[in-house]
């Protein structure tokens, strides 16, 4: 019995030490990066799960961007290689994905994530390992506050909240708005707070606040409660799968008030799930397919040719994030994470397909937002709101 015990202990110990060795050993990444024939960039996103279209669209945008860059010769002669990871929409997986990309694959920079909760799970790991991370569409301000290696190419929720609050108050002339937020999502909670702050400052009243959890399929109780408060509008700063269901159930209960939301609504699935219930609703977004900016039009045409679908905001932001990163790599003194980081921080007036991108001191981009109206399987542009 003791002999068996000793043998098993021995095996366990060998396995454990064997495992850890692989991660900390090997050649230093710096030497690897200088001598490698390609530049390895890591991407992590939600290719499956409740926000699958976010990850897939972003991935397509990034792929298209790198394809164009490599076709034009790459960055300083070196082509960019992309390694993607599906985090299935779960923050724990985002953390594991980023750890693996940094420690095992030795990527020199990271692109991701769309959802703020997942960016927040991964950012500390990137910051600790001093690998620059560029988020294409995470809007919660806390993401870039993690450290000086974390960047984003989109606006942040304090601004986005004001956008919808102003739109609701000035354009739609709403006086009482109810809020239905997703407590599992940092994005949703943050955006709801910023909306509330601005809307009340403009003189509006919050008719009621209810909560749900992403993954829920039944919102009748919350909607009944909201209905009895008789709001002029409902602000739902969540993600498209739940928003579609909420819209259906709201209309089913007889709630006729207009629905509003943020960029989490941006998906072709929104209309697939919500159908007529979402038509006539408004949401704030990073870009619109109605744009007549030539850069945007070229991008939309190229994307359509490559993937046979019209790009949504996520695809456009993924494209811009990838291009901004490549631009920074081109301007960096050498291909090392620290130099790329410095080049990213000094990005000024980069002309992207979603507008001019300047990275400010908080490592965020100051950009305008658009408000679009859901008109079926496409959205129509309503107005632009500048910071």
């Amino acid at each position, binding site marked *: 019995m003791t002999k068996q015990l000793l043998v098993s202990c021995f095996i366990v110990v060998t396995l454990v030490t064997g495992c850890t060795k692989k991660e900390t050993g090997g050649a230093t990444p710096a030497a690897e990066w200088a001598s490698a024939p390609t530049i390895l960039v890591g991407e992590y996103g939600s290719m499956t799960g409740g926000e699958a279209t976010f990850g897939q669209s972003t991935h397509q945008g990034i792929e298209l961007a790198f394809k164009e860059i490599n076709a034009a010769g790459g960055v300083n002669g070196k082509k960019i290689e992309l390694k993607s990871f599906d985090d299935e929409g779960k923050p724990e997986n985002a953390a594991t994905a980023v750890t693996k990309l940094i420690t095992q694959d030795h990527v020199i920079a990271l692109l991701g994530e769309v959802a703020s909760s997942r960016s927040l799970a991964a950012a500390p790991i990137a910051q600790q390992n001093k690998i620059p991370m560029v988020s294409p569409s995470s809007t919660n301000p806390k993401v870039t506050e993690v450290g000086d290696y974390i960047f984003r190419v989109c606006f942040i929720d304090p601004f986005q909240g004001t956008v919808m609050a102003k739109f609701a108050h000035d354009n739609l002339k709403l006086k009482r708005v109810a809020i239905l937020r997703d407590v599992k999502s940092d994005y949703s909670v943050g955006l709801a707070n910023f909306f509330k702050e601005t809307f009340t400052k403009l003189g509006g009243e919050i008719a009621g606040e209810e909560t749900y959890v992403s993954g829920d*399929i039944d919102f009748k109780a*919350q909607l009944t409660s909201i209905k*009895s408060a008789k709001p002029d509008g409902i602000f739902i700063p969540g993600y498209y799968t739940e928003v579609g*269901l909420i819209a259906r159930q709201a209309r089913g209960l007889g709630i006729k008030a207009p629905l509003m939301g943020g960029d989490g609504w941006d998906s072709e699935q929104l209309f697939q*799930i919500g159908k007529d219930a979402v038509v006539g609703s408004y949401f704030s977004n990073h870009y619109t397919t109605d744009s007549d900016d030539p850069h945007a039009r070229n991008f939309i045409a190229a994307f359509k040719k490559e993937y046979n679908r019209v790009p949504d905001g996520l695809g456009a932001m993924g494209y811009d994030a990838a291009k901004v990163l490549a631009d920074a790599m081109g301007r960096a003194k050498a291909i090392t994470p620290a130099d790329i980081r410095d080049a990213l921080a000094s990005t000024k007036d980069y002309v992207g397909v979603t507008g001019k991108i300047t990275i400010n001191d908080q490592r965020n981009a100051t950009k305008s937002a658009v408000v679009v109206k859901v008109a079926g399987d496409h959205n129509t542009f309503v107005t632009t709101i500048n910071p």
Partner: protein
Amino acid sequence: MVYGILQLINFAHSDVYMIGAFLGYYSARWLNVSDSPGYGSFFAVLIIAMVGCSLLGFTIERLAYRPLRNAPKLNALITAIGVSLFLEYSGQIVFGANPRLFPNILADSIIFTFGEVRITRFDATILFTSLGLMAILRYIIQNTKLGKAMRATSYNGQWASLMGIPVDRIISMTFVIGSSLAAAGGILVGIKYPKIEPLMGVMIGLKAFVAAVLGGIGNIPGAVLGALIMGVAEEFVVGYGASTYRDALAFGILIVILLFRPAGLLGKFTVEKV
């Protein structure tokens, strides 16, 4: 039913429910039901899903539980968990992990308004289908020979076989009936809450287990009562409290019941005499 006869908690039941919903999804699309929503389509899809899941339940019993009939109960329980995980993750591979939208097999309309409360056609269909199925189940168990045999087997399997009851076949029938009911549940939920995905059975399965314990495990009317109490309580918590406590309530009830009345509301505490 399964616990009553086999003392086995069938964790895979909620995944049979999920498979039922997906069978409904695929058969509705195959039959091109969205072109003609109505009760005909509803019953067609329901029958297909119920038959499909009966076969699935039969197969699971044959392959996973029967070989362990004489093994310690714990082994069968772990196998049940294994079957559950197998179904969930195979579902993810076969159906993809993204949620799907259940097609429109029935047109919704408001039947009855009572102040602020609206009763829709979906609600009525679900209620009457459930009541109908429960009535059929009760009839089978109380008024047929099969039901009598099932009750005898649940009382004592060995004595039942001594009396000439083919216990293996009875157990298979139990699984067939149970699985077809699970499929019906899947279809009804799919109509009302059209988002379906391979992991949809997980939370529902846990809450169904709590409902069964609440009512008295092994006791069918108890399960119905338990489910009613849990459903209503959950909606009250969400409506008047915070929706985040919806799941906490379910497990809170489990803890309270096990502390104060472990046999359940309608259960009897049987003492096992050696």
